[in-house]
């Protein structure tokens, strides 16, 4: 992909190309501080954040930013790793508006903080839900099964 060469030139050393197929490219960056700068570059070719898939490889968490556009079937997957000690990353909502709810979902289900997000609160689960259920260390026990959200005793 032409975009890939441009990105590689702009981010020498920091950017690693994992897959380079006609309609799918996978890249990864080590330094998460470069995310916003890279997102501005990606914005020139890709219109929307298609999806944000977080994978729990405790203690590391891998964020898969999937970008797509309306012109063709190209997909760009950007992998960023964050650790549990520093569990925050810059929000790209100001660059890709479609990232807004996807980042809220990642915050809801994994507890990742997105710095600079305009409205970071839970989206799928209730406000007072205990824990972040898609993490691998989340145990589904009776307390969770019988959770009602109400302070009632029967």
């Amino acid at each position: 992909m032409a975009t890939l060469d441009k990105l590689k030139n702009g981010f020498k050393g920091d950017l690693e190309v994992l897959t380079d197929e006609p309609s799918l490219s996978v890249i990864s960056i080590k330094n998460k501080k470069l995310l916003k700068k890279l997102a501005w570059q990606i914005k020139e070719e890709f219109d929307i954040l298609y999806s944000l898939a977080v994978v729990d490889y405790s203690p590391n968490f891998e964020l898969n930013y999937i970008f797509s556009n309306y012109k063709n079937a190209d997909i760009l997957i950007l992998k960023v790793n964050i650790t549990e000690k520093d569990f925050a990353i810059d929000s790209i909502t100001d660059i890709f508006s479609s990232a807004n709810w996807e980042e809220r979902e990642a915050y809801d289900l994994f507890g990742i903080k997105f710095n600079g997000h305009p409205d970071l609160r839970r989206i799928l689960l209730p406000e007072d839900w205990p824990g972040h259920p898609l993490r691998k260390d989340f145990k589904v026990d009776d307390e969770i099964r019988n959770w009602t959200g109400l302070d009632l005793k029967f």
Partner: protein
Amino acid sequence: MEKENSIRLNIGPVHPAMHGVLKLILDVKGDTIIKAQTEIGFLHRASEKIAEMRYFANYYPIMDKLDYVSALNMEILYASVVEKAANIEIPKRAVYIRTIMAEIQRIMSHLVFIGSFGEDIGNMTGFIWALRERELLMNIVEKISGGRLAPMYICNGGMFYDFPQGIEEDILKALSTIENKVNHEYNAMFTKNQIFLSRTKGVGILTKDMVIKYGITGPIARASGINRDLRKVSPYLAYDKVDFDIPIENDGDTYSRFVVRTREILESIKIIRQCIKDLPPGPYKAAVPWIIRIPKKDTLVKQESPRGEMGVFLVTDGGDKPYRLKLRSPTFFAIHALEGLLVNIRVADAFVIVASMDPVMGEVDR
């Protein structure tokens, strides 16, 4: 905007005019909405967490209940991602049967949209008529798979049963009935009906920029003049072997979103007729063991569901269960756009606009 004279209106999650359990929080001044917020999550069933606890072959019933109006599309999508990850080649007959079933389900889904849209603008007759046509196809799906709403028909490597004898004639007969009704009765009921036109023309205009801003795909984007359909852009199943058009409208209002879906029904009928003509003989299923192990890799598959581009991102680690399964649902992004779309319009129009998005909350909340 001054807040003093506004009233906060909570609509839903359980409300007769809402689609599923969507909640709208509207700040209303007189009859005009000045701010709209949406709240989702009332149908959250942790589908992505359940995926990590089940064998690959045991996840189909959960996919059925994601978008319960187009269950077969969801099953085909999940089968495609598992087969792509495990390098399973499916027979040619299975590809064609899947294409036929996907398009039958698309017609059924759009008929539900037409019906519920009619109901929301006060056209109860349209609702009954659309469900009457849907019943014809429901019976066919029942004959083929044994199920109606959640058919459980697709499995890894193909499908559970072959087509029963003589089902092709039944399908063709039902299709010609539906084509006739859509071309004649639905025009009289909807697109040439003055009341319908005054409720929908120019209401809730979604511009091209807004579509791109919110990441909306599918019929909603095509009603705003964006020519993108995954069946053409990156053909899967047998879509590159059949001839069909992509309906495009340029106005972006609720009327366009209705017309695009109506015309898509006619295109789907075209696809099914060609597939039945070319339906190859042979096995309908590849031999795949029930428990399979997939080496460590990431797989992304996206397909055109009746509501837009549905995607699955599957992460495997060599085990017999997915390590992580992320579902990308199209209506999730469309519901987000309601915050921008439901501003400076009348309260009565809000329901028409929500209905034109055709949300199925099972897929939004996962």
